[in-house]
């Protein structure tokens, strides 16, 4: 397990990557060792994914260089990186749901006769072999869209395996896998290691990292704060390097009493595309001034739950009450009028109209507030926007610039402003800290606290344990569309949350019942 046993296969020297508004990487020096698992940890937005995108050729460094076997290399595209034997499994899956498993695995690398005719039979055979290796019984001719998220992740991994990658980057590969599937993945990783493949493993599950890793690199705000072999590394060491000495302070300043019930959901059910339920009989209640955290893994149905509450999905059963008033048919506009507001998880696709200006995005949900008859008072709109820009501390050159020019944190503040402009009584926040830097994160949390103190009820979804523990007054854990645990602030522990979030992912009945 000593460093010398694992030769360095790729290294980054003084790598800096600047995005508009943020510096994602600051002069990092990173060594990727072959025949070993190089573990990469850091909080959301610490720069892990950026660094991997640089290695995989998705992004290019602003300054600094990438070296392989002592030579400087420039990857202008993922193709370039692939020629150098680098494969990556992204956190967000890059599959074609309309194509079959084997078609996906051999996308752009089709096995052909004479370069034209696709040899489907050979592809199928190899797909079967790959699936056997991954111990999954997935038919090569199934459409990827019909697979569960966990199975899709397996397909993604198989895709990288099929390319015989010498360096394999796995960005949170286990986020949607069950325990049994994780075990299989670990076995495959051991095999690959023995073959001399260099693996980069990114995960938020610290126990997993310690178990599987040989070398660890910790990132914080784009800077490497710790890099060493795994010997002697324990969870406190990782946490210290991840968070730094000045631990994040989301602590509640003042205790305030909760008011009346602000939101009640009864037996909500939403069917998913594969015949099951994305939200399966969820009931919950939220009081004014309360922050309710919903913890769970990817695909647990948290996003769908919030979307069902706001009225995005039409075929939903179950009732929603806001301040004792029963909501009618699921229509987003009506529910916003009744005091609900959603801050979606996916800013780019659900939160913002990228092509429009910051001003137009901010007021999109609340144009009624400055409209007389059919006439919009643009002067009034501008002053409202200026007011919120100041209140939310949004850094912008001009509210007339397109919202796409902003950094993630500022974009998120625009989305939050949009929701707050409707004067909501219940705020639904889906991963409010995703993809924003630590400063913006702290400000978002400060705003949440302040809003709760003002009497707003807040439901927020997160996959970050620390966040959910420090922000919530009460925590609900979801798994497979169901509520699998509910804890008050006093009784909750990390272990309880993690255990509850794995319920239903366990392969056998016995484990499910003990959980």
């Amino acid at each position, binding site marked *: 397990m000593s460093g010398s046993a694992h030769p360095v296969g790729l290294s980054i020297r003084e790598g800096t990557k600047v995005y508009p*508004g943020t510096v994602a990487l600051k002069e990092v020096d990173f060594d990727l060792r072959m025949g070993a698992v190089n573990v990469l940890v850091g909080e959301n937005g610490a720069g892990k994914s950026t660094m991997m995108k640089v290695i995989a050729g998705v992004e290019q460094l602003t300054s600094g260089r990438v070296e392989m076997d002592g030579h400087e290399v420039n990857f202008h595209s993922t193709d370039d990186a692939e020629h150098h034997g680098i494969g990556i499994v992204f956190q967000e899956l890059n599959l074609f749901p309309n194509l079959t498993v084997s078609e996906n695995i051999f996308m752009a690398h089709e096995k052909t006769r004479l370069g034209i005719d696709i040899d489907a039979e050979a592809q199928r055979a190899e797909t079967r072999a790959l699936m056997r290796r991954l111990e999954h019984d997935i038919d090569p001719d199934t459409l990827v869209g019909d697979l569960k998220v966990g199975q899709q992740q397996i397909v993604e991994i198989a895709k990288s395996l099929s390319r015989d990658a010498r360096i394999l980057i796995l960005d949170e590969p286990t986020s949607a896998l069950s325990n049994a599937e994780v075990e299989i993945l670990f076995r495959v990783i051991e095999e690959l290691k023995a073959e001399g493949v260099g693996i980069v493993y990114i995960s938020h599950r610290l126990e997993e990292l310690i178990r599987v890793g040989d070398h660890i690199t910790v990132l914080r705000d784009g800077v490497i704060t710790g890099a060493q072999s795994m010997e002697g590394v324990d969870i406190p060491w990782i946490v210290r390097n991840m968070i730094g000495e000045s631990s994040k302070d989301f602590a509640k300043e003042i205790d305030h009493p909760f008011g009346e019930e602000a939101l009640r959901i009864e037996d909500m059910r939403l069917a998913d595309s594969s015949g099951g339920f994305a939200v399966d009989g969820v009931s919950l209640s939220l009081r004014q001034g309360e922050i309710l955290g919903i913890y769970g893994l990817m695909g647990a149905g948290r996003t769908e739950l919030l979307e069902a509450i706001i009225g995005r999905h039409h075929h939903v059963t179950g009732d929603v009450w806001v301040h004792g008033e029963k909501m009618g048919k699921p229509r987003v506009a009506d529910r916003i009028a009744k005091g609900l507001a959603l801050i979606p998880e996916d800013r780019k696709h659900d939160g913002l*109209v990228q*092509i429009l200006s910051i001003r137009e995005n901010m007021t999109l949900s609340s144009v009624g507030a400055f409209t007389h008859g059919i*006439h919009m008072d643009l002067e009034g709109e501008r002053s409202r926007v200026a007011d919120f820009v100041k209140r939310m501390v949004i850094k912008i050159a*001009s509210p007339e610039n397109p919202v796409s020019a902003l950094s993630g944190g500022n974009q998120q503040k625009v989305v939050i402003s949009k929701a707050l402009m409707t004067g909501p009584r219940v705020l639904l926040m889906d991963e409010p800290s995703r993809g924003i830097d630590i400063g913006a994160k702290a400000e978002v949390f400060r705003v949440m606290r302040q809003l709760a103190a003002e009497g707003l009820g807040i439901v927020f979804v997160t996959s970050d344990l620390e966040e959910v523990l420090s922000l919530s007054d009460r925590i609900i854990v979801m798994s497979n569309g169901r509520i699998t645990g509910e804890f008050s602030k006093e009784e909750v522990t990390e272990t309880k949350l993690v255990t509850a979030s794995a319920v239903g992912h366990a392969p056998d009945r016995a484990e499910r019942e003990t959980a």
Partner: protein
Amino acid sequence: MTDSTVSPAATQAGSNHTLLLLLKARTFIALILVFVFFSIFAPNFLSTANMVIMSKHVALNAFLAIGMTFVIVSGGIDLSVGSIVGLCGMVAGYLLLNGIDIGLGWSVQFNTLEICLIVSLVGISIGALNGFLITKLNVAPFIATLGTLYIARGAAMLSSEGETFPNLTGNAEYGSQSYRLIGSGDFLGIPISIWMLIAVGLLAAYIAKRTPLGRFIYAVGGNERAAGLSGVKVTRVKYFVYMFSGFCAALVGIIISSQLVAAHPATGDTFELNAIAAAVLGGTSMSGGRGKIGGTIVGAFVIGVLSDGLVMMGVSAFWQTVIKGMVIIAAVVIDQAQQKVQAKVALQAQAAVGK
């Protein structure tokens, strides 16, 4: 950039701003260039008579292009407007000649205003049908309006078995003799159809800029999911744009039948393509979310002036078509350049704040 020290970055940003301004005004600049060119090379181009004729030609396309702009900004496309023009002309002609036979031995006749209202209603209904197909039945806009294109054209042919309705002079007895004035009359020396264009243009520009509906059209075209989650009633917005487009097409149907004093069922063939061209020339993005009514009207003028001017210069019709195509492609290429510069300017300004 307001301080007195001029750094290289600031001059760079300054030149970008100038470039951006030029790019933004490109359609207008093109219009001026075309105008100057033809006033030098085409005889009688600047005569009042020619101006009136040309503006009448341009108006027809401009109406359609205004309606088309809203549709394209909302992320859709409306191929049916040319056929709606034809059908609406036929409906107007039929009503003028025959009225409606209600089967009781006599027929109901209408005056000019009533005819205009009924015809507008026909155009709006076809637009509503487009909206229904696209929102409720989830048909892609291209296909839905392609379908109504054929349906409306077929209906126009059926209405007269392919014949022309001639001599639409109206009847003083029924109060429809004033129908001719829509196409041929003028007020203060300016044709009625131009006054109508001014009214519709101002109305559309007002909707786009100062009403929530206008804002929603842009939002739906920019990102339908985000707009829906923000509480925008996407379905209603889509219904509106197609109905408005249908209304604009109906107006054109009325004007043409009045100008020609006849209605032919093939009228308006391929008009939709000219309307799309004018909108694109005026800076409307085919992927939705971006476009201005003013730009579209200028775009319609560029196309109109170009084709009339080329005719006056005696350029062959075949070459005209080629030139029109090149102008449209050039417009889109320049538009791409503008987007790039614009994004750069915004990023620079934002980077200055971020520091």
